[in-house]
């Protein structure tokens, strides 16, 4: 592998992960970092829900995505939608009917792959909040460069120079695809290559998460 990425990483190497739970005083919270990309996620719930949002057979999942600077725009709204649909597929919402599970993601540092970071942060916060889940979701981003090489977990600079940008979310048990999002021009083969590489990287993220949880439990956090 050549070392021509901006931060001297290998093409398929993810940035160092840092996980901190109980970051703010909420029902559950976590700070997840992919290198210099950091998202703080806090969970409130199951809590009281407004009558107009109430669902009689399951919990309402409300996601707020706050950007690093400025107020939320269309991009953030898309992220909220993506997060909500991903979460609805893994949270056991039927256990808490007529309640609200509120998820707030605050970007603390933005250095690319922010959606993947947010999905991972949300997973950690949900675990911290003790919300019942069928599975957990982990996400990894990648870009395809103009020369066809695939870079896993790109930095902001690498995303700007790319030809296409992809985000994949997988579940933990079977590593099946929960969600994917792609921008730019790419061939079918390139897409499936990205999928396979992201899958391998997702396994690394899962291992990190497992270690963090184990550490927190043995240390009584």
């Amino acid at each position, binding site marked *: 592998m050549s070392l021509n990425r901006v931060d001297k990483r290998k093409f398929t190497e993810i940035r160092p992960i840092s996980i901190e739970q109980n970051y703010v005083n909420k029902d559950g919270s976590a700070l997840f970092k992919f290198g210099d990309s950091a998202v703080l996620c806090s969970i409130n*719930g199951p809590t*009281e829900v407004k009558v107009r949002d109430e669902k009689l057979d399951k919990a309402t999942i409300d996601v707020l995505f706050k950007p690093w600077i400025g107020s939320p725009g269309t991009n953030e709204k898309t992220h909220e939608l993506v997060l909500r649909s991903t979460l609805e597929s893994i949270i056991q919402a039927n256990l*808490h009917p*007529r*309640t609200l599970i509120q998820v707030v993601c605050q970007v603390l540092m933005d250095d690319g792959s922010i959606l993947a970071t947010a999905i991972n942060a949300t997973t950690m916060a949900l675990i911290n909040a003790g919300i019942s889940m*069928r599975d957990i979701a982990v996400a990894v981003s990648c870009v395809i460069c103009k020369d066809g090489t695939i870079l896993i977990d790109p930095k902001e600079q690498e995303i700007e120079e790319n030809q296409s940008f992809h985000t994949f979310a997988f579940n933990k048990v079977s590593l099946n695809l929960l969600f994917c999002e792609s921008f730019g021009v790419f061939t079918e083969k390139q897409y499936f290559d990205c999928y396979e590489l992201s899958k391998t990287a997702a396994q690394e993220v899962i291992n990190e998460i497992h270690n963090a949880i184990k550490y927190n*439990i043995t240390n*009584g956090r």
Partner: protein
Amino acid sequence: MEFRSVRTVLPGDLVSVEASDIILGPGLMQNEESIICTKAGVLMKKENSWFIDSDQKRYIPATGENVVGRIIGKVGEVYRVDIGSAHQALLPFLAFENATKKNRPALNIGDLVYARISLANRDIDPEIQCTNLDNKADGFGELKKGFMLKCSLRYCRRLFSLKTQIMESLDKKLTQKGIEIEVAIGLNGRIWFCTEKVKHAIVFYNALKEAETMSDAELLEILFSLKTQIMESLDKKLTQKGIEIEVAIGLNGRIWFCTEKVKHAIVFYNALKEAETMSDAELLEMFKNLDRKF
């Protein structure tokens, strides 16, 4: 036979169970032929019973659990009580010992009660009562004065299961010193306690908060020895200075305390908050030096 820990699990992990008749506790779910975990924690096993010992802050009501609640309203013949769950609990006026249509309990908004969950169903609001199954008060009812603190649910459960051990030996040690502490541990993450003197409350609060991240053995240790040590030295030091503090610790993560002067309360509050993340030794040290802060 005690429950023993098997391994650390994450949501989605599969549990391989050989026996056919098994009892699944919190955090586990049957999915067709397999058993899957729905929470992160330590998988615990006793014969054919399995559950996941996990931690959280939000309370989900379960029938028969003791809780510390706060009255937040009166509607018709019931009180509405905040027990920390998604929905407010209902406490009927007649759910007290010796209560009749004419002889109603006199509780006001903001009062604390120690109650038992009599009905918990995900589709209806939980109901609580201030009597045991024989309609006797049995310690349930209004919690007068005192202090409530909020803790994690796991901590409250642990304190609750160790309650008799803690209480017995504490009782012995404290009675010798003439110190009285009344404690109500709510499984909803709230502990209430009431002491005669505010300083005892502070000490007790700090001890409880400190012990949150400890193992059972350490926890007992701190609640017996540390506390009495603290009490002793604090008592001596604070009495010399004429400061009195009253404290109540709720296992539901709320602590109440009362001091004569507001500035003492502030100092106590800060000390309590600070001590939350400390180790045993640090905590002990801090309590010993607490008087200097006043």
